[in-house]
């Protein structure tokens, strides 16, 4: 799916053309009331083209009926084409996914320890399966034994393999991905047909697409506008008959089609599908369109500090000696404490020490005894062959350790540690023997560009809350540095749920990201929950969106897409309704010009002839649909700013523009039609 970025291929387009015709089926069309009316009009004009006198004497001639019929047919087809095009991209993706899904044989471990080959489609929840290097993982599950690098490119498009292992938050594997090295034993977590891949296929294909709440509301409004115009057109017949004007059917249908909101009616479902598709292109899987729409309504974002706001791996930034110790010594002891430490923090300490001129010979430490970090001691270090014990760890742990050995706690230790904590860092005290030499300043770095994005969110009226396990002091500093509005320090999973509930009680919609099992309840409580693909099955199931790249900052993009989706609908609706003004001025005088020549005063566009006026308006009405397909598919330009400035911009562009454009367009088409002597 690395081809996702390429927008519309030739195959998709040509398939969409075929689908546009297939969608002419009235049973399909009736779901879209506006376009269904156009189709009914098309059928009537087709009948008129065949037999012009069908509904009474014809005054306009067969050629005109045929012209109206053809334009109407194209109007319907254009609308169908837009929808098919939007669906086509999803379908193409689904096909790619389906190929991944092709049946594989799985090695099921039986209770007696023997192995049995079973087709992947027959695996049931609870089966234990072994997958070896190079094999495709048959279905979704949790690793219960082993550690392997998994190639998830089939689903995420990301070629670098990821490490998955039994236990913890990185134990879930997805069907369709491949074990790149080593082997795993996994427990099947889904029944056939319900796997992540199955869901993903039906999602991108739009098979189970349900109309979103706003879409339903808008469809209602459009249907009522259509009904109003049907009343307007039907009642015109007896009114004009009273004035001794006989209106012909084809012209009435033309006027009706021009007035009902065909532009938005034709593009409405394409906008929705394309919006979902844009989310998918971001490698985020939305479980429903409703979730994407809800993302646009978000008032509060709850973000984990680690991984989302900061890189998470704390890096050494400074070595601070206590009074009476030289910079050289603390650097050296810090280096000693970490030479055998393979954690990112440890490596960053070595790196920083090297940078500051600390030198060391690896061999010297080969015989040193490594003291691993444990949650109990909260320290790690080395016992050097010479008997010196080097330790680094939490300040209070080291203090306790040194006191026990009869050492003295330096007076300025507390102050240094506090200063570091206030600055948002983590202080690690370093001791050689029973002597504390100084403090390592571990710093959590805020991802670049986030401050600006949070400012944008603030302009959009969205509040950001940072969630962290850090102490309040550290949390406050990072919060300030990142520019979030609020933070929850020393947060436990239940604090997250409480924070969500509190915001929701104020009537706010809350979004959050999460990956661990203990995030699942909060993800479910939030209005929009974005789970990381790297996370646990439980988290993924509780969320209504899954980020395949496991990048929590994506939530911000999803919010924008949700907003853009609504804006596109609103803008095109406004445009569609605003268009009607010009169409009236084209058609009404044309309809009555023969019986009431005075109405020519209303022909302000000076259109060449009545027929040309009506056909020009109708042609404009049809070709505006394909012209707007790019906007429907890409969404209108969206910049994060306040509601007022967005409204001003969009009203000018699509409201005022919607009044002016058809005047120009209809006149142009009229000039062309007249120039070519077509009418």
């Amino acid at each position: 799916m690395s081809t996702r970025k390429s927008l519309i291929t030739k195959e998709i387009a040509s398939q969409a053309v075929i689908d546009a015709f297939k969608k002419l089926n009235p049973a399909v069309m009736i779901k879209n009331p506006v376009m269904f009316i156009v189709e009914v009009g098309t059928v009537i004009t087709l009948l008129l083209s065949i037999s012009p006198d069908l509904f009474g004497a014809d005054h306009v001639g067969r050629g005109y009926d045929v012209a109206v019929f053809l334009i109407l047919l194209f109007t319907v087809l254009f609308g169908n084409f837009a929808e098919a095009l939007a669906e086509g991209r999803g379908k193409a993706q689904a096909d790619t996914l389906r190929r991944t899904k092709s049946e594989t044989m799985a090695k099921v471990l039986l209770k007696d320890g023997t192995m049995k080959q079973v087709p992947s489609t027959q695996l049931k929840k609870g089966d234990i399966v072994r997958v070896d290097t190079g094999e495709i993982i048959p279905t979704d599950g949790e690793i219960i034994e082993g550690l392997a690098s998994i190639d998830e490119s089939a689903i995420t498009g990301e070629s670098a393999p990821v490490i998955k292992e039994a236990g913890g938050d990185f134990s879930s594997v997805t069907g369709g991905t491949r074990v790149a090295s080593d082997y795993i034993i996994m427990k099947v977590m889904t029944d056939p047909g319900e796997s992540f891949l199955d869901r993903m296929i039906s999602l991108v294909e739009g098979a189970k697409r349900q109309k979103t709440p706003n879409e339903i509301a808008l469809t209602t409004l459009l249907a009522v506008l259509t009904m109003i115009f049907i009343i307007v057109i039907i009642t015109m017949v007896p009114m004009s008959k009273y004035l001794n004007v006989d209106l012909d059917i084809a012209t009435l249908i033309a006027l009706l089609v021009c007035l009902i909101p065909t532009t938005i009616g034709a593009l409405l479902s394409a906008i929705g599908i394309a919006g979902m598709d844009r989310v998918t292109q971001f490698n985020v899987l939305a479980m429903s369109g409703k979730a994407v729409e809800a993302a646009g309504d978000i008032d509060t974002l709850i973000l984990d500090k680690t991984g989302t706001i900061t890189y998470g791996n704390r890096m050494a930034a400074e070595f601070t000696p206590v009074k009476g110790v030289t910079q050289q010594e603390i650097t050296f002891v810090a280096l000693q404490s970490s030479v055998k430490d393979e954690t990112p923090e440890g490596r960053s300490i070595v790196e920083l020490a090297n940078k500051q001129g600390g030198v060391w010979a690896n061999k010297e430490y080969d015989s040193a005894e490594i003291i691993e970090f444990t949650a109990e001691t909260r320290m790690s270090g080395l016992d050097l062959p010479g008997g010196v014990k080097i330790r680094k760890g939490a300040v209070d742990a080291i203090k306790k350790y040194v006191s026990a050995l009869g050492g003295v706690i330096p007076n300025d230790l507390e102050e240094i540690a506090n200063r570091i904590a206030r600055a948002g860092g983590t202080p690690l005290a370093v001791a050689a023997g029973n002597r504390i030499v100084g403090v390592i300043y571990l710093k959590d770095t805020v991802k670049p560009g986030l401050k600006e994005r949070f400012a944008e969110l603030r302009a959009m009226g969205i509040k950001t809350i940072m969630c962290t396990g850090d102490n309040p002091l550290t949390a406050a500093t990072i919060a300030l540095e990142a520019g979030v509005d609020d933070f929850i320090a020393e947060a436990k999973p239940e604090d997250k749920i409480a924070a969500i509930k509190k915001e929701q009680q104020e009537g706010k919609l809350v979004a959050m990201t999460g990956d661990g099992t203990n995030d699942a309840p909060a993800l479910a409580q939030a209005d929009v929950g974005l789970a990381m693909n790297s996370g646990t099955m439980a988290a993924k199931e509780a969320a209504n969106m899954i980020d395949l790249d496991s990048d929590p900052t994506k939530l911000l993009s999803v919010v924008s897409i949700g907003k853009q989706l609504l804006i596109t609908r609103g803008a095109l609706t406004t445009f569609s309704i605003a268009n009607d003004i010009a169409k009236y001025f084209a058609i009404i005088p044309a309809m009555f010009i023969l019986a009431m020549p005075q109405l020519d005063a209303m022909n302000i566009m000076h259109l060449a002839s009545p027929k040309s006026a009506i056909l020009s308006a109708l042609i404009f009405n049809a070709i505006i649909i394909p012209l707007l397909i790019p906007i429907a598919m890409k969404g209108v330009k969206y910049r994060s700013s306040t509601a007022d400035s967005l409204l001003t911009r969009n009203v000018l562009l699509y409201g005022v523009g919607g009044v002016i454009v058809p005047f120009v367009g209809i006149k142009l088409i009229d000039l062309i039609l007249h120039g070519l002597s077509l009418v």
Partner: protein
Amino acid sequence: MGMGFIQVALTLVIIMLLVKPVGTYMVKVFGQEKTWLDRIFGPGERLLYRLMGVRENEAMGWKKYVGAILASNFVMMLLLYLVLRLQGSLPLNPDGIGNMGAAQAFNTAASFITNTNWQSYSGENGLSYLSQLLAITFPMFTSAATGFALAIAFIRGLVGRQDNLGNFYVDLVRSITRIFLPLSFLVALFLVFQGIPQTFQGAVDVTTLEGAKQTITRGLIGSLEAIKHVGTNGGGWFGTNAAHPFENPTPLTNMVHIVCMMLLPTSLVYAFGLMIRNKKQGWAVFTAMGLIFLVMLSVIFVSEYRGVAALDAAGVHGNMEGKEVRFGISESALFTTVTTAATTGSVNNMHESLTPLGSIVPMAEMMLNNVFGGKGVGLLNGLLYLILSVFICGLMVGRTPEFLGKKIEGKEVKLAAIALLIHPFIILAPTALALATNAGTSSISNGGTHGLSEVLYAFTSGAANNGSAFAGLNANTDFYNIGIGLVMLFGRYISIIAMLAIAGSLAVKRVVPVTTGTLRTNTPLFTGILIMIILVIGALTFFPALALGPIAEHLAMPH
């Protein structure tokens, strides 16, 4: 023209000065807190509640509220119908008027219970004094009060936290005892002072100066005139309505009539702002309505002063046909604009005789039905368009649309759509039907485009519950009596049900806090959009009909 302009401006200034105090008073009337008003009106009201069997503190959800409106209105309508049908044998009939026919009685009962006051009869020779009192003046109070109660209930729904729209009977009684009765009493005194008759005695036969015998009808006109305009009712004692010298004798009474018509509809918009604790929002709606009003007024003012080109060439300036000389062009133009804006429906000049362009104004205002509009209903129609504007604009800022913190979703849009659809339907469909049938066309007095306007005007007036007549059309036929009767009932009650359903649905919604991402609906920008949406949707719906009627007529006149 200059003098006329000053008169019009002066009247509008008086109205504007009264908006704030009257609006503030209204909020007190319908508020839950105890005020000094309770000491004055309380005892009488409690007696009424006891008589009616109303528990004063009983809260009503929207369904119960609608039920109370429909039930009470149905019973009252039945009463009106019976009084009209039996007036010949009932007391207070000094002029010996006979019973009214079934179709006309239905039409009249429907007309007065819906606050329309469409009159297919002529009061002076069609109604007994008892009918004038019970079937005309009585519903003038209750229908106006019903409209008021409705608007107040809707506002409570907008700001409410639960489905409790108040108590309909309390709202009904309070608006009569605390607003309509005191105000009407004061106005009636002034009108009588200006020379309007107020008597139980029947018509008098007199010999004129030329020696001819003449019968002069009279009656309880002063009291009717007062509530007629205070309650934006519009049904006159006489067939010629406020053009009759006994209904509107002097320029002063004319001004009082105009001020009375505009007083409560305008103040209600201000009261709306107070009740939702967002005065700016109230003014935003007020401005939208006010600007449309001014545009309409300017159109009719200028077209009537310009008159007819052909006559102008012959030395007759301005269009005085169908107007009273004691009011002149400016006061007639203002009266017409006000009576159709506030959906009163009384006339001091014949709308049929307006210039074609001028005649668009009353029709357009009734088609929009929200340029301040009648008691309560006008505000509600305005808020209906506001909800639609919020919906479209809300989408354009990328959030689920919300108004006053309440989300506008599928259900509200559906209900608003019903209210939006019903108005053009009950105007255009019966107009078309009338023009297609002999029963309809035989009542038309002028042919061609003007005849079309006559029919269009009649149904528009009925649908908007306005009641003014274009005149010319003979509406006292079974076709028009029943047709317009039904249109009036549908026009009033369907939108009442839909709007209160919206109120009930909004009342129980969570309130979304305001952020910078929230669409602000009290800005000049939004007011502008609201005006555009009212005009565009209104224009798109009625443009063809207007084009075939007054616009075609105007364009056909020699220039």
